C-alpha cells in the first residue's frame, strides 16, 4: 500500500463511516482467493479446480442478490453502471473535484461489473468444458483462457485504481474493504 497515507487512523477530523458490510467483504476476499487459487495453484483438469470455480460462482450469486436486498452501499442502485458518469468522474479528477464516494465511485463501479461479468464468463465456459456437449470443443477452451487473461488485466487495473484513488481521495480503500469503514478526511465532501 505504498501510495496509501500511513497512520491516518484517528487523524484529526477524519470521519469513520461504515460502508462495507461483512457479506460484501467476505464475497470480495473470497472471490480474490478463488481467483488466486484457481489461477495459480490448482490442477486445471482436476476436481479441485471445478469446486473452486463453483464456489466463486456461489459467491457471485450471493453478491448479486445482495445488490438488490443488501444495505445501501452494497446495492446496485448505489453504483449503477454508467459510462457517462465514469467519464464525468474522470473529468472531475482532472478538474480537482474532491468528492468522496461512499459506495464505489463511477469508475470503480464499471470495474466491479467488469470483474463480475468476467468471473461469470469463466464459470460458464468452465462448466461447458466439463459437459458432454462442449467437452473437447476448442473455442470453449479458448474462451475460458481469454476470459482468464482479461481477468488478470482487470485485476491489475483494479489494484492500480484502488492505489490511485486511495492517494487521490485520502481514503485508504484497501483498509476499508478489510474493516468495512471508510476514513474520510474532514475537508472532503461525500456523495
Amino acid at each position, binding site marked *: 500500500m505504498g501510495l496509501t497515507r500511513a497512520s491516518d487512523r484517528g487523524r484529526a477530523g477524519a470521519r469513520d463511516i461504515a460502508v462495507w458490510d461483512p457479506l460484501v467483504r467476505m464475497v470480495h476476499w473470497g472471490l480474490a482467493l478463488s481467483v488466486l487459487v484457481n489461477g495459480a495453484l490448482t490442477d486445471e*483438469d482436476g476436481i479441485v479446480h471445478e469446486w473452486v470455480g463453483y464456489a466463486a460462482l456461489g459467491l457471485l450469486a450471493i453478491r448479486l442478490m445482495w445488490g438488490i436486498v443488501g444495505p445501501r452501499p452494497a446495492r446496485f442502485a448505489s453504483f449503477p453502471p454508467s459510462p457517462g458518469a465514469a467519464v464525468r468522474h474522470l473529468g472531475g479528477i482532472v478538474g480537482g473535484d474532491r468528492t468522496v464516494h461512499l459506495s464505489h465511485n463511477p469508475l470503480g463501479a464499471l470495474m466491479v461489473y467488469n470483474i463480475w461479468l468476467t468471473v461469470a464468463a469463466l464459470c460458464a465456459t468452465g462448466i461447458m468444458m*466439463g459437459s*458432454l456437449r462442449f*467437452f*473437447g*470443443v*476448442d473455442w470453449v477452451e479458448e474462451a475460458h483462457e481469454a476470459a482468464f487473461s482479461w481477468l488478470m488485466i482487470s485485476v491489475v487495473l483494479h489494484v492500480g485504481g484502488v492505489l490511485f484513488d486511495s492517494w487521490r481521495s485520502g481514503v485508504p480503500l484497501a483498509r476499508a474493504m478489510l474493516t468495512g469503514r471508510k476514513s474520510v478526511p474532514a475537508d472532503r465532501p461525500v456523495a
Partner: protein
Amino acid sequence: MKTFALIAAMALAAPVLAMDLSGDTVLGTTEAEITAKLTDMGYEVRKIEAEDGKIEAYVVKDGKMAEVYVDPVSGKVAKLEAK
C-alpha cells in the same frame, strides 16, 4: 462375501471398463493414426493435440468423456482420465 467383493469391484471399475482402453492398447504414434484407431474403436475424437510430451485426445463414447494420453514413441496409452 467373495461375491459381494467381486460385484463391488466390478461396480467401481465400471466407468473405466466402459472405456475399453488399457495401458497395453496400442493406438499409434501420430495424431492421424491415433484418431483413426480411436474412431475405429467407436470413440468420437473431439480434439487431439500435443501435451507435456504426450499426445492427448479428448474422446466421447456412450455418453462418457475421457482424456487419453498416448506415448508418441511406443504408441501405447500412457494415461486415461475419465471425466
